[in-house]
């Protein structure tokens, strides 16, 4: 601790332990702040409180048994994790997936993305104490989770995608429920925006707070909405379309300021684009089987496969090393949240606690993905 003497007023820096149990660290994230008054002079990330050894566990399971573990990575967007993993296995084996299954993956993947982004925007509203806004968005997210429950039983632990297809088909009732959601949600979301996004106090709290320039974002390996908020139009769904994403007409929203408000707003804009994709996918959805013919025992050929998708937080990659047996030899998960929090110590310097809270809320990290 350095003591400074300014005009005979002796002040002392002190350290404040934010987390792992703190209302706004969104899980068990811990940061050790060194404070001068309320101004942060140093911040140090501490992670590892949610480590479950998923990568190691995968080595003792068969390829299909790993799928439920991926739900627990970014537990706010379980379907996207499932898809990323099964696509990696499919890529390593050269499997083809039925068209209907691919469309269902898009629909439920994008619903999952909306749910995840809703959690981000609403918990940011909550962190700035707009309690009512939080409730509004969570009620909408609840409807998505209800659709999930109707389809495959799980709400957060989705376990939806299978190697070569998906686990459950969407019945007409489920498709009708999704259609109802698409029809009713935009109006409710407008209410939420009027309450939170365009609120003067909210904008005051987030505008020009914790600015991250495009160069900084690239240097720190940002991906996903955080990168796009800094002005880099990089979206894997457009740049290197995987699955069926080249069949849909959607935009990649990009904002230039790179502050907390832009990171927040970008998610709001992305929700609208996801709605567009789901709408088109519902219209194009063909009839047909949902599982293609896959071998009884899944044994990818010896070798290394890397596949990544545009997750809700950024690029979610799986690196799979196969030794020809029924178990993966090594499964590495490249999680966007882990990369994204790397910038916190750098940006936090000079922020006051209130701005820091808005900053980490806008980064939208999930601890399940950081600690794995």
């Amino acid at each position, binding site marked *: 601790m350095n003591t400074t003497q300014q005009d005979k007023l002796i002040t002392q820096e002190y350290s404040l332990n934010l987390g792992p149990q703190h209302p706004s660290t969104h899980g068990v994230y811990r940061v050790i702040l060194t404070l001068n008054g309320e101004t942060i002079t140093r911040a140090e990330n501490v992670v590892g409180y949610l480590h479950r050894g998923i990568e190691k566990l995968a080595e003792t399971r068969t390829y299909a048994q790993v799928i439920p573990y991926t739900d627990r990575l970014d537990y706010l967007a379980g379907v996207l994790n499932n898809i990323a993993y099964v696509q990696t296995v499919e890529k390593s084996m050269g499997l083809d997936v039925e068209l209907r299954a691919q469309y269902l993956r898009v629909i439920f993947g994008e619903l999952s993305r909306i749910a995840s982004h809703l959690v981000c925007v609403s918990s940011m509203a909550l962190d700035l104490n707009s*309690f009512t806004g939080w409730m509004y968005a969570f009620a909408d997210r609840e409807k998505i989770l209800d659709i999930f429950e109707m389809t495959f039983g799980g709400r957060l632990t989705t376990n939806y995608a299978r190697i070569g297809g998906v686990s459950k088909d969407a019945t007409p009732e489920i498709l009708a429920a999704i259609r109802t959601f698409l029809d009713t949600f935009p109006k409710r979301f407008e209410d939420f925006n009027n309450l939170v996004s365009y609120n003067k106090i909210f904008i005051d709290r987030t505008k020009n707070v914790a600015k991250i320039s495009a160069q900084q974002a690239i240097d720190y390996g940002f991906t996903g909405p955080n990168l796009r908020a800094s002005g880099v139009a990089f979206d894997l769904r457009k740049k290197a379309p995987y699955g069926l994403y080249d069949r849909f007409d959607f935009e990649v929203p990009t904002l230039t300021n790179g502050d907390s408000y832009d990171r927040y707003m970008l998610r709001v804009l992305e929700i609208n684009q996801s709605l567009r994709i789901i709408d088109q996918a519902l219209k194009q959805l063909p009839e047909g089987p949902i599982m293609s013919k896959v071998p009884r025992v899944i044994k990818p050929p010896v070798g290394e496969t890397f596949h990544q998708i545009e997750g809700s937080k950024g690029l979610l990659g799986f690196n799979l090393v196969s030794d020809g047996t029924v178990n993966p030899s090594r499964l590495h998960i490249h999680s966007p949240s882990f990369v994204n929090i790397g910038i916190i110590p750098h940006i936090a310097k000079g922020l006051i606690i*209130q701005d820091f809270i808005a900053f980490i809320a806008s980064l939208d990290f999930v601890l399940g993905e950081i600690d794995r």
Partner: protein
Amino acid sequence: MTKFLLETMANFAITGFFADLIVVLVYFVLLLLFIIINVMLVVWVERRVCAFYQERLGPNRVGPFGILQSVVDAVKLISKEIIYPKNVDKWVYFLAPIICFISALLLYTVLPFGKGLVLVKLNVGLLFFVAFSSTTTISILMAGWGSNNKYSLLGGMRTVAQMISYEIPLLLSMFGVIMLAGSLNLQDIVNAQEHRWFINLQPLAFIIFIIASIAELNRAPFDLPEAEQELVAGYHTEYSGMQFAFFYLAEYANLFSLSILCTTIFLGGYLGPFFPSWIWFTVKVYGVILLYMWIRWTLPRIRMDKMMKLNWKFLIPLSLLNIVGTGVAIKAWPYIQQLVR
């Protein structure tokens, strides 16, 4: 009632100091009951109202519409252990919630609840109210300092900065009313509004009063001292059981008393046609409380520097302007009336 009590006791040969003491005790217990029942009701109303805003149900299990929820909560808090964390400043830590609660109770002594329904008819009632409401600051600083917790300390420091700043516009906004009524006695102020409520003459002061009193009450958007998302619970992070309940009760007691003050000085107090005065009083007070709740559950929390800016650069100059304007208007009014005639 005092007379009746004294006479009854005189029959049992209790006179002098002891009789006075008993009268005081009776009043105190009645006041305490009144406040606690009302505070519990306000807590319940707050929870139901915020649930209504948020498309939830709110507490609805205990009693009709969950009205007894606060009672159950209170019983739970009373039965809980009081925890003293390591290295706390014992006396400061122990006394803070008590001082907080007592200063909240004392405010009620001068407030008129209806025609003639006032405990102490004090000539400087408004001054008394303001003086005692500012002692809350001390107790919160004590709690923040005594807890030996950095979150509490930050909360305590924020409280001092905020409450001392906002006391100024709160006071200044009352000046216009005092000038119009020509008295600090709250009953006189109410009676001066026989023909016209002061909110009509002092709309600007009313708005300033509402904003400043929200800051005094530490409610959103000015709830920085106990900002949950930043400081966990601010100054009462370490408190548990009944000590926490004291802070909680004091918070809602202050909400109730400031709503009464607002009604008294701006909304004509207990005055109103047809119905008995206490009905008008209740309706108006709960109206003001609902206004506070509406604001709380709509707005996010303001930033520290913006809050200070709002106070020093906006509220205080405006309230000073309001005082000058009121003074000029009072002096000029007779001449204008003559001119019109």
